[in-house]
């Protein structure tokens, strides 16, 4: 593709260099109609085993969201940003990744973290308040959940780039990994989102960005967040491929993400996927969603509940009967009971841990401060136990 006029008027010829790759935008632009699979012929291509697994994960995921929300009401979790209504995205994000891949979640993606194998109680640690993170990021290849929006997108790019660097330097240890960065619609407004996508485009890093567009950033609707045709259209500004998908259609999300991951893994560059979905609950248990959205809107989206939509499909194609549904429901109850039991057994955190990991080795200054706290706690303990000094 040429970006300059072919005119050959002397002295007015095309600029000597085009200043860059100047690639063809056409293949980058998303189809503005979100990809759907449910209700189309494409649904038939899915393996029944995968369908059953997706179903199980969706049902368990919904139950997980419910249980975590209940625990906030009991005061056992300080705050929980439920992904209720977004389970199709959560489950698909976890399932399309291979073991060597990395997941970079937002604070709302506890469910994706659990679906990738982290123990529920460990995935909920940040929200419980016992520690800032409850799992080993290297065991599961999941970055810690954290709240500074969009910042994790750059980490995903750096990690994916590093893996390529290592593969080039030492092909024997090469891992064909892909990093999947999750982002909310609101977070796409942050400078960090832009910088991450730009680095990804320039470096050709194997990253997939999944924007879960649930229509709101807390109370702020998308129309106040962006005037873009779709968020997926942002991809073209970074020379990367944009895709738009119905985020409540688990098969569509699975397909689009699988293709995106394959694209990135093959070294064909990053992909930006926008999934249109909806959060059925408030922003967190501390939020009052009635202040900013009409009940009718929620009801309309409840009619497109991703779990219900998928169950209806499975029943339509004869892959779900009452017996299977009951079995999955029982598994979900077991999960919930298991979470409750884990909460009962969880030990209180150790104050000494406050000083241990600020640096690889505590500084003299921190050792002093740790000793101060330890002495204070010993004194308190004496007081409590009625012991005398």
């Amino acid at each position, binding site marked *: 593709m040429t970006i300059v006029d072919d005119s050959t008027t002397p002295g007015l010829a095309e600029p000597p260099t085009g200043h860059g790759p100047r690639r063809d935008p056409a293949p980058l632009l998303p189809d503005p109609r979100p990809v759907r699979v449910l209700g189309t012929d494409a649904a038939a291509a899915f393996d029944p085993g995968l369908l059953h697994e997706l179903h199980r994960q969706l049902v368990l995921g919904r139950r997980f969201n419910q249980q975590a929300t209940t625990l906030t009401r009991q005061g056992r979790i*300080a*705050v929980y940003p439920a992904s209720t209504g977004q389970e199709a995205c959560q489950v698909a994000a976890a399932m399309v990744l291979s073991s060597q891949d990395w997941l970079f979640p937002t*604070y709302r993606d506890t469910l994706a973290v659990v679906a990738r194998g982290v123990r529920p109680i460990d995935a909920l640690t*940040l*929200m*419980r*308040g*016992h*520690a*800032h993170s409850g799992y080993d990021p290297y065991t599961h290849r999941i970055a810690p959940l*954290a*709240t*500074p*929006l969009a910042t994790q997108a750059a980490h995903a790019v750096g990690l994916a780039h590093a893996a390529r660097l290592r593969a080039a330097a030492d092909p024997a240890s090469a891992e064909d990994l892909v990093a999947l960065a999750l982002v909310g619609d*609101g*977070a796409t*407004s*942050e*400078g*960090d989102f832009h910088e991450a996508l730009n680095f990804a485009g320039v470096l050709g890093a194997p990253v997939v960005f999944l924007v879960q567009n649930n229509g709101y*950033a*807390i*109370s*702020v609707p998308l129309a*106040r*967040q*962006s005037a873009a045709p779709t968020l997926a259209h942002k991809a073209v500004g970074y020379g990367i491929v944009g895709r738009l998908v119905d985020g409540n259609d688990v098969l569509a999300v699975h397909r689009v993400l699988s293709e995106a991951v394959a694209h990135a893994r093959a070294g064909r560059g990053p992909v930006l996927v926008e999934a249109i979905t909806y959060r059925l609950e408030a922003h967190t248990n*501390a*939020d*009052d969603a009635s*202040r*900013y959205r009409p009940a009718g809107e929620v009801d309309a989206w409840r009619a497109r509940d991703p779990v219900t939509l998928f169950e209806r499909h499975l029943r339509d194609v004869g892959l779900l009967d009452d017996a299977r549904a009951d079995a999955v429901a029982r598994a979900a109850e077991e999960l919930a009971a298991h979470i409750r039991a884990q909460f009962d057994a969880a030990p*209180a*955190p150790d*104050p000494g*841990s*406050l*000083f241990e990991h*600020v640096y690889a080795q505590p500084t003299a*200054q*921190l050792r002093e*401060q740790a000793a101060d*706290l330890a002495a*204070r*706690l010993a004194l308190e303990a004496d007081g409590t136990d009625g012991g005398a000094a």
Partner: protein
Amino acid sequence: MSATTTRRTTGPTTSGTTMVAALNAALRDAMAADPAVHVLGEDVGSLGGVFRVTDGLSAQFGERRCLDTPLAEAGILGTAIGMAMYGLRPVVEMQFDAFAYPAFEQLVSHVAKMRNRTGGRMGLPITIRVPYGGGVGGVEHHSDSSEAYYAHTPGLHVVTPATVADAYGLLRAAIASDDPVVFLEPKRLYWSTEPDPIAEAGATGAGEVAPIGQAVVRRAGTSATLLTYGPSLPVCLDAARAAEDEGLDLAVVDLRSLVPFDDETVCAAVRATGRAVVVHEASGFGGVGAEIAARVSERCFHHLAAPVLRVTGYDIPYPPPMLEKHHLPSVDRVLDAVARLQWEA
């Protein structure tokens, strides 16, 4: 309008008012008084802010005056700069302390420097409201005490109320100021109503504009002086009450304004007792307490019977909710420091 005028307004006057309500009233009164005042930030509109400080403002003044912005703090502050260039008085809300960091460059490189850059021709009367500090069970990144970053940046005023009346009075003064003000709101005190009446000289009354740059003696005392601000004021007042049992009469100074710093009030209070403890939540190393201790030591050296001590958060990232009580200055830690003020010497 001068930042130091004291005048009656429609502000909160009932004793049961919370700090959130006082801040809300200050915004409402300022917007009513001056059409140049505009509020902008994340979720400040229909939601009224995650802490409800801007509750009802968009309904009363319209969405133009109280704007829900896209989610981008540098963009918010950069936009506010442009608005101030055109003569408006933007009041920016940063949703939480740690989420003001993306705007750090706009704050340090422009907000703080524009008046100086232009030889006084272009001032930026922006108020940047930052809910700060811990003690509310917030997850990581929701409890930072970031005042030292701002106080070290010439060109900014840095103000933090500790009482309901000051929340109203200082916010009115900040918005009226022709200079940019970083207005730090102690989250921990958001839902507190005014504590038991405090005997104090020069304190702001309800519904009055409080002067920026003046510390206030919240409690007179003769034994030693506690220097504090924002969320640590109630801790110091409690410590002073507890110290009475040990026969110690502690003075408590509420700084209110970190920049400009009120050397006069602080030094007078320290000279009167010869002993001082600085108390704040932020990590101690390089905290505002270091500046206070250094300048008090420098200016009151021969009046000091003991070194100025500091009771602060430890030099660690802010802890998770279950452990934050260990990090925060407590009555016990304050009293321990007071006990170490070399009473025998």
